[in-house]
């Protein structure tokens, strides 16, 4: 074989090697990309499962709370109204009978309003501002502490699931304040433009650096993250607590 022929051979093999290298490169990149897609899909499935679990848990908690509220209402409100209605309807006086009928009408209204709270459709119909206002009014009606609501604009673009979780997180924050902080004032600031809700109290506060026994705060943070939002907390012993919920950007 002449020198040139052997050189041609070298370049033939060189060319084949070059083509193989190109093929290997293409296969390698496609494989690496597919592996990443696969890992991402698994991660997405996991996040989706976690999201669904959080929604289910939240729904369950809200239903439990609604049931206990319905129970309380049946016993304390409707039960009392029924007793009064029975008393008036048993009377022979026509004015008492009319009052008894009025009570029956009131009972019907109360039962209708209670039945509405039994399913979670109210979550869709109520605005976040109205919900917070109702919750604060409930607190004020107990005479536990002073409340203040500051709402700028209306938060509208939230899905039912996101609203459900937010409602539960707000409820939990307010419950925590009532249980642990013993404040004289609770303030809630809602800003639609900044997509944030601030819950402030002037209670006893705590040191956030000290790990708490429960997993409440971690749960709230995780729930906010599940819907694409953020949860932040600032507190100091004796100086109250400030919680900020950053809503998801839809």
């Amino acid at each position: 074989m002449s020198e040139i022929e052997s050189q041609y051979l070298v370049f033939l093999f060189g060319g084949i090697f070059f083509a193989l290298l190109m093929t290997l490169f293409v296969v390698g990149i496609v494989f690496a990309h597919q592996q990443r897609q696969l890992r991402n899909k698994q991660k997405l499935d996991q996040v989706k499962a976690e999201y669904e679990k959080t929604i289910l848990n939240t729904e369950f908690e809200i239903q439990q709370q609604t049931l206990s509220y319905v129970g309380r209402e049946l016993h304390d409100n409707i039960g009392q109204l029924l007793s009064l209605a029975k008393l008036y309807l048993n009377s022979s006086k026509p004015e008492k009978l009319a009052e008894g009928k009025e009570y029956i009408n009131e009972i019907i209204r109360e039962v209708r309003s209670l039945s509405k709270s039994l399913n979670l459709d109210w979550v869709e119909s109520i605005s976040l501002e109205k919900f917070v206002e109702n919750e604060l009014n409930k607190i004020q009606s107990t005479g536990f502490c002073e409340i203040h609501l500051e709402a700028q604009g209306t938060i509208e673009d939230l899905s039912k699931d996101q609203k459900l979780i937010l409602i539960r997180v707000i409820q939990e924050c307010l419950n925590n304040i009532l249980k642990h902080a013993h404040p004289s004032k609770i303030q809630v600031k809602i800003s639609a433009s900044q997509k944030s809700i601030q819950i402030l109290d002037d209670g006893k506060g705590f040191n956030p650096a000290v790990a708490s026994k429960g997993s409440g705060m971690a749960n709230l943070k995780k729930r906010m993250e599940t819907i694409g939002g953020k949860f932040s907390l600032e507190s100091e012993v004796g100086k109250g607590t400030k919680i900020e919920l950053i809503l998801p950007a839809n």
Partner: protein
Amino acid sequence: MVVGFLKSLDYYIIIIYVFSLLGITAYFRLPKERRKQRVNKFVAGSLALVSFYESLAYFLVSLHTVNAWVYLLFFHHFAVYLNLAIIQEFVLNKKRKWIIRGFILVHIVFSGLPLLLGIIPINDNGEYSSILGSTFIIVSCWIFFYELVLDDRYLAIKPIRFSGFWLITSLLFLFSGSFMILISYSYLINNYLEMYYVVIEVTRTSAMIFYAFCFITLANWKGYFQTQTPVSYE
């Protein structure tokens, strides 16, 4: 003159003509909004440029005139800028886009201007310009592959059905081959001229593959290929 030119045509330039003709026709048949996309303009421009300078080079050969300046000016400069522009269109990160644009600027300053001012002789074999250009193109290709594999925005894309992937892969191999050839250019020319022609064939084949992908990108039958990057910054 014309007969001499026609006689000088070989399979390489005929294939380049075919891809250019089909590619440019496909470009003008694209819907208006796709014709406005810069990537499609650059790809069509690349096809027009190659058919122009290769014709000029073949024409000069038919006149038995030196054609090295044609490749130096068009392949080692204008084609490099167009190819870098194509790559930066597929890069998502704004900073990395600017790095690639910076490469174009550096190439203009350190190779284009010296050529214009006569510091680099017009009939130079183009080793310096080509090494500079090939290095920038190879680095830019790796920037694209880095993003393709690691950037979340590329997760939804199937590389096999993404024209950017094929264009840039073929560019990488074209310029890797051309880089290796230019490193050994003087040695091959002086010692193994026949071997030099064989090596040139490898580059020509890579070039034909690249221009084939340019045509495929513009033709994009039944929308099989995805030509747009997932997120455009500008």
